[in-house]
């Protein structure tokens, strides 16, 4: 029984961490242009400051 407690804590915290990352990614418009991103990964010129694709 006692061995379960840390496991539960780890899964819950892990899940919450994943959730925070996901919400951050969505708010950063990382899901706004899936098709474009699929192509951009093939480009050789690296863009440090990509614009906002939300439009």
């Amino acid at each position: 029984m006692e061995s379960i407690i840390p496991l539960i804590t780890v899964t819950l915290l892990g899940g919450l961490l994943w959730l925070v990352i996901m919400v951050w990614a969505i708010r950063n418009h990382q899901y706004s242009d899936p098709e474009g991103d699929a192509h951009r990964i093939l480009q050789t010129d690296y863009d440090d400051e990509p614009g906002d694709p939300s439009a």
Partner: protein
Amino acid sequence: MIALDSSSEAARTGEFLFGVQDMHCAGCISALERALSALPEVVSVRVNLTNRRIRILADTETEPERLAQCIRETGYTPIQLDADSIRLVSTTPQSQGLLVRLGIAGFGFANVMIYSVVVWSGAEGTTRDLMHWLSAFVALPVIAYAAQPFFLSALRVLRNFRLNMDVPISLAIILASGQSLFETAQSGQHAYFDAALALVFFLLSGRYLDLQTRMTARSAAAQLSAIEPDTTTTLAEGKEVNRPIGEITEGATIIVRSGDRIPLDGEITTGSGDLDNSFLTGESRPESVKQGDQVVAGQFIHTGRLEIKVTRSSANSSLRRLVKMIELAESARNRYTTLADRAASIYAPAVHLLALLGFFGWLTATGDTRLSINIAVAILIITCPCALGLAVPAVSAATTGRFFRSNLLIKDPDALEKLAGVRRAVLDKTGTLTLGIPIIDRVSGIHPQALAVAGALAASSRHPYAQAIHNHVMESAIPLATLDKVVEIPGSGITGIWNDQEVRLGRSDWVGAGSTGHSATWLRLGGDVFHEFRFIDRIRSGTRECIKGLQDLGIETILMSGDTEEAVRALADTLDIDQWFATARPEDKMAMIDKLTRQDGMTLMVGDGINDAAAMARSDISITPSSALDVTRVAASVVLVGDDVSRIPEAIHLARLAKRRVLENFTIAGCYNAVAVPLAMAGLATPLAAAIAMSTSSIAVTLNSMRMR
């Protein structure tokens, strides 16, 4: 003060949006972004390939035309979009909100599943209770937040005393949560928190896909809306000034030149020219007009400069009246119930009835209220329409994506299903099957020297017949004759001096050849030597394949045009179409469509002119090439980018395939219910069985839908 003026860089940058339909790869992205960021006034550029848009932040003073020019020079076709109106119709915040809900539901689903596995593997006593309490602790807040879209939608329809799919969904989620909480408090054996979360997660996925499909459709519609010319040249105190069309009053004089479209109805006070009526009437032959003639908004000027006294202001113009007619036609169109809606209207009451039946059956048989409620909840969860809620959106999302990639923009969300049911296609001639650009019919018997003179006369003119002659001469590699004093007389023809003799190319009565009935142009080579040039409309590339494809799919093809009987019959003969109607006015077309839509199956209308727009709005489904006027594009339910009409049968084939997938998915869901519902009724549906059954059926329909991609 100086410091205030140069306050911040950000305050002086504005947003510019362009729709670019013809970009599709990593190379396009780099080329466009590199070319645009090279402009000094541009601050940042970002291509969105999913929506086919470019968002540019640049100095507010930048002329949009300069940016458009840069895109054109890179090799793409930009459509300027109004950033504010795009933001109004944008569903981005909505889709982001849904994605966050989906993420949270996924988090809850995954965690509760871990606890459930412990219970399924045989946990007893306090361990099971702990797992149930933990599940409740995670599941209840997650459900309260993530399932809100279903609750709100169910509440909305219940207020109107109606049922939709969200009512059984909400009921299942709420009842399952409540019952599970009660069982947990009683140290009971079965809790359905995992099933409730699975429902929320799967159905939110379906909702998200559905929104994406609608967003694609809506952004396509936004890209195509209203790019009307908004200013025109008018005479004010003897000077030419540009004014918005809305401000021009009746009695004012406006000036239009070759290459313009007439913005308002009026009467010609000065000048003469040749007008193209093809958008208005479907007639391919240019019309000559002179002082005193009436002109209507929408006519295109090939040659000449006209001063027009406006007889009707913009609010009353014939173009505006046509738009009204289209709106009226649209409101009279039969409301179409989608397959999913029809399925839902049977499904929702049936689910409630089954759950009630299970509840009362077990209550009378055992007298145990708690057991009966558990059975009813199990039935509600098992029958919950995961497949319906996920299968249809997944298929339409995959299909819309495929349409989008092959340059078909779907504006009407129901268009896919209607396209699948098309039984007959009504096709317009000028501008749709033909290009509306004349080419020379036959020149045999005309001396090369005559051709050389005609080509030289025609070289500088913008009249379509002149351009046809010039192109023909250039293609035949005949050197042009040398002429002096070439003068174009708009509305009549072109004259010049060749070998000290006057030569004329133009209308038969002006040239002096007497009047003939044909749509021909005559050349006079000094004295009484006449040559006749006849023209036919050039057939669009892919027209033959389009007609053949439609006929192969078993679709009845009908040709309907406002052009002369002679021209329509000739085209019908070459294309092998038996049913054709000529000299059809817009009202005739609409009446014809009305008659056809009353028959079985869907009627497709393909057209591009203003004269087709009302008929298109009235037909079940309509397709227009993107070269059409905005009025027509607004009326159409599908827009074809580019001019390859052979994509139309392909699109119908694809839509039929999509419909078959949806029906397959219904069958899969039906089979699953046929097995699972009796089990639930018999009280054999444990939470484990429910979780397995629900996941497998959802995954099965999703995989089947993905075959569309």
